[in-house]
């Protein structure tokens, strides 16, 4: 499995560079919106995970490499599991970049670098990565990458837009029973509890999705 994850990075070494540059530019790009720290510690790792995951999928598809992978002494379930684990490895690369850029940024006293990474940033990123992976992979293993490109774009939009749409809805209709319950929950629990709950929910999705993907891939014909 380790070899498969290494493979997914080895086929796209350039992405290591692109994502590093992305991490440098993000805090500057979001400075005027006042979201430098958020973009550095949350958006960048999420975007990096998205890029690595989709690029790996597109390289596999372009070269029809699944035929080779499935001809190697490998269990199909290992191929699936390593794809899921790889998203966490990509997120880790994203964190390393963010922490490094944040550290350099603070040392140079640029105005967009005001704080270090927090535990909440990490929980937030992991939750999003879990949800992204759980939606992306079953569709990818079932239909391949090219056919699901539109879906992936919609997925990205959804992940970016859904939270803001939800907040907008909550502000516009404060009398809705769900909004009221949700507000009550938000007001009575700590943000750490809330985030942990989100993380746990995300990881449950992740595991269920993993099992669905293994089932799909075991029955796939090449």
């Amino acid at each position, binding site marked *: 499995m380790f*070899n498969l994850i*290494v*493979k997914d990075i*080895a*086929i796209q070494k350039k992405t290591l560079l692109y994502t590093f540059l992305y991490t440098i530019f993000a805090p500057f790009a979001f400075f005027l919106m006042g979201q430098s720290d958020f973009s550095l510690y949350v958006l960048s790792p999420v975007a990096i995970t998205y890029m690595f995951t989709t690029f790996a999928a597109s*390289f596999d598809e*372009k*070269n*029809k*490499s699944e*035929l*080779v992978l*499935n*001809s*190697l*002494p*490998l*269990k199909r379930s290992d191929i699936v599991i390593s794809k899921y684990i790889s998203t966490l490895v990509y997120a880790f690369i994203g964190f390393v970049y963010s922490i490094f850029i944040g550290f350099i940024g603070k040392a140079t006293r640029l105005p967009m670098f005001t704080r270090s990474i927090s535990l909440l940033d990490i929980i937030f990123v992991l939750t999003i990565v879990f949800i992204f992976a759980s939606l992306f992979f079953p569709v990818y293993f079932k239909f391949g990458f090219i056919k699901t490109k539109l879906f992936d774009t919609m997925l990205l939009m959804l992940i970016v837009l859904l939270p803001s749409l939800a907040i907008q809805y909550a502000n516009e209709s404060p009398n809705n029973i769900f909004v009221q319950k949700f507000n009550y929950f938000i007001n009575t629990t700590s943000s750490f509890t809330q985030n942990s709950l989100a993380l746990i929910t995300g990881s449950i999705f992740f595991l269920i999705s993993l099992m669905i993907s293994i089932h799909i891939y075991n*029955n796939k*014909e*090449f």
Partner: protein
Amino acid sequence: MDNILKIKNLKKSYKDFTLDNLTFNVERGSVMGFIGPNGSGKSTTIKLIMNLIKKNSGNINVFGLDNSKHDKEIKQKIGFVYDENYFYEELNIIEMKNILRPFYKGWNDTLFEKYVKEFELSKKNKIKTLSKGMKMKLSLAFALSHNAELIIMDEPTSGLDPVFRSELLDILYNIIQDENVSIFFSTHITTDLEKIADYITFINKGKLVFSKTKDEIVEHYGIVKGSKDLLDNDTRREFVSIKETNFGFEALTKDIIKARKIFKGKGIIEKASLEDIMVYTVRGIV
């Protein structure tokens, strides 16, 4: 007899094609040529052996093990060469090798280096810059560098020019000097096999036509040529199929010895090539 590959009553159905009740064996240390026209089920059979698709029924045994239960162990000792390049084109040869190497317990770098040198592959070149023939040699180098006992090749010579094809066959010829390695080689270019195959398995429209030693086939099959007045209801029965023209006929027989007796002094009797056998048999079934 030690059979490295045993296929029994294998069946796989698609909407418009069925591989039906296929049975044949590959002996250890031999070369099996797997022939048939396009769409006859060669690739389907290979995909079934490699567990890339699921059979409907039947058995596939590789190295005496069931291929779906012992998939991982079996693939440690299989080298595969497919009709196209399926490796990562953006990588160079060494990078691709580094990806494949950790998956095989028996990977041998020295052997790989030897083949790269022998095949004149330049290690720094990206795979996408290689010609079709070079890509094929690269696949072969990968397939041969982990001490595989069975090399499975799906149309390795298709799309190659005659020079490359003959070079590839020479390479294979050298490999089979090692009595432990067997080659299962599908092709529709039958001349490839006249030189190196020990056995020929012929399928058409998903059904087995025969699986025999090459010598047996060459000894028994024959082409008879002559004028049309030699053909009557009795003599017609001797042939698999007959090609008639204004000037005469050409026909394939499964029993050249009998044909020699019947047509002695009347027609021309020649040994049939694998191509003749394939072409006439396919026509006979239609």
